[in-house]
């Protein structure tokens, strides 16, 4: 039928893997409740398949052959690739949506040269969102990736165009498609600076995102983002694509910089689809 939901959420591995270390339990539970609300919103929209626009971290794509964009058209996927005890998520076999994925990839290709993949191993970047959004792993998933890790990265204006192309593609299929972009805002994950969060920068970015202000969102340079938001900040690409797909205003349901043990400003938001 069309795109029925577009939102964003965080995916840092600490969100599940270091949950037991958190001292600010109330804040953690508030965050989990916002994620549960997102799950309910996606279910209430009658979703047939969920697109997860991820910023994967060298689980599938490497500098030997790095696609700027990729869409999964596999039957099933496996994940997480991380040690299940470390991530606190058991290894799963996750249903794909090969038929819908193929139609979406074909339509996206009319305007954006996306790669496609029939194999995909999920890392925490998809496994953490799925843990909250489809805990029974019964919702067909279409994984999508934007290169946010190995420079040269996908330019922001192309991420916007990719989001618009995904929207056109979703609107061209009879099924109901939900979409989430999952990234960090400012963060320095997996480095000695893990836990550092630039809250003013995050809030300014989220303001631009909730206004769905294309010009302001595309104004960042990678140099600025790296300086102010760390290498994790490159993942704003997934949020920008989700905003472009929705085209409407955002509703910031949750943000906190008070869970640095999760190594990211934890975020949940949804957009109006217009």
């Amino acid at each position: 039928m069309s795109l029925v939901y577009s939102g964003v959420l965080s995916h840092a591995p600490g969100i599940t893997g270091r949950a037991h270390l958190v001292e600010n339990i109330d804040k953690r539970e508030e965050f989990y409740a916002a994620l549960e609300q997102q799950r309910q919103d996606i279910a209430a929209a009658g979703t047939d398949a969920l697109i997860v626009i991820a910023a994967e971290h060298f689980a599938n794509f490497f500098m030997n052959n790095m696609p700027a964009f990729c869409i999964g058209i596999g039957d099933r996927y496996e994940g997480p690739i991380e040690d299940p005890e470390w991530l606190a998520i058991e290894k799963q076999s996750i249903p794909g949506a090969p038929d819908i994925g193929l139609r979406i990839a074909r339509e996206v290709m009319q305007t954006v040269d996306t790669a496609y993949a029939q194999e995909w191993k999920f890392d925490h970047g998809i496994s953490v969102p799925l843990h909250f959004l489809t805990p029974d792993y019964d919702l067909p998933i279409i994984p999508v990736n934007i290169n946010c890790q190995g420079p040269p990265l996908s330019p922001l204006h192309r991420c916007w165009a990719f989001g618009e192309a995904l929207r056109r593609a979703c609107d061209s299929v009879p099924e109901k498609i939900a979409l989430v972009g999952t990234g960090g805002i400012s963060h320095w994950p997996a480095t000695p600076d893990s836990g550092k969060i630039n809250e003013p920068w995050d809030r300014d970015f989220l303001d631009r995102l909730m206004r769905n202000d294309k010009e302001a969102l595309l104004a960042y340079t990678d140099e600025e983002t790296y300086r102010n938001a760390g290498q994790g900040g490159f993942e704003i690409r997934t949020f920008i694509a989700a905003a472009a797909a929705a085209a409407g205003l955002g509703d910031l349901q949750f943000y906190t910089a008070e869970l640095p043990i999760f190594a990211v400003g934890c975020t949940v938001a949804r957009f109006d689809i217009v």
Partner: protein
Amino acid sequence: MSLYHLQKFLFELNRGELAQEKYRDDLPGLLHEYDLTDEEQAALNAGDIGLLYVLGVNGQILMHYAAFLGIEWFDYLNMMREGIKKHGAVRDGVYAMTGGGSSFTDEEKNR
């Protein structure tokens, strides 16, 4: 310096159960399949997280390797900080430490 090959070794180890088996059974044989410098080989033989970080291994690759080695989270962070102290600043790749080696979480400080 062959950061590309060093990271490729870890990328393939992180995602491949066969590579993980070979790592456990025959690490020298597995290392032999990659174009690595002596320093890189030594770092991998020793599981030296600090040196690997200084050599420029992306944290998103190194973090998975540390988990594979069974290294606890706060120990992983400390090993990188110790690596910087011992070997100096990160030499290559996209990461540079900005926080002067201090912790950013109460959970770690209160340990």
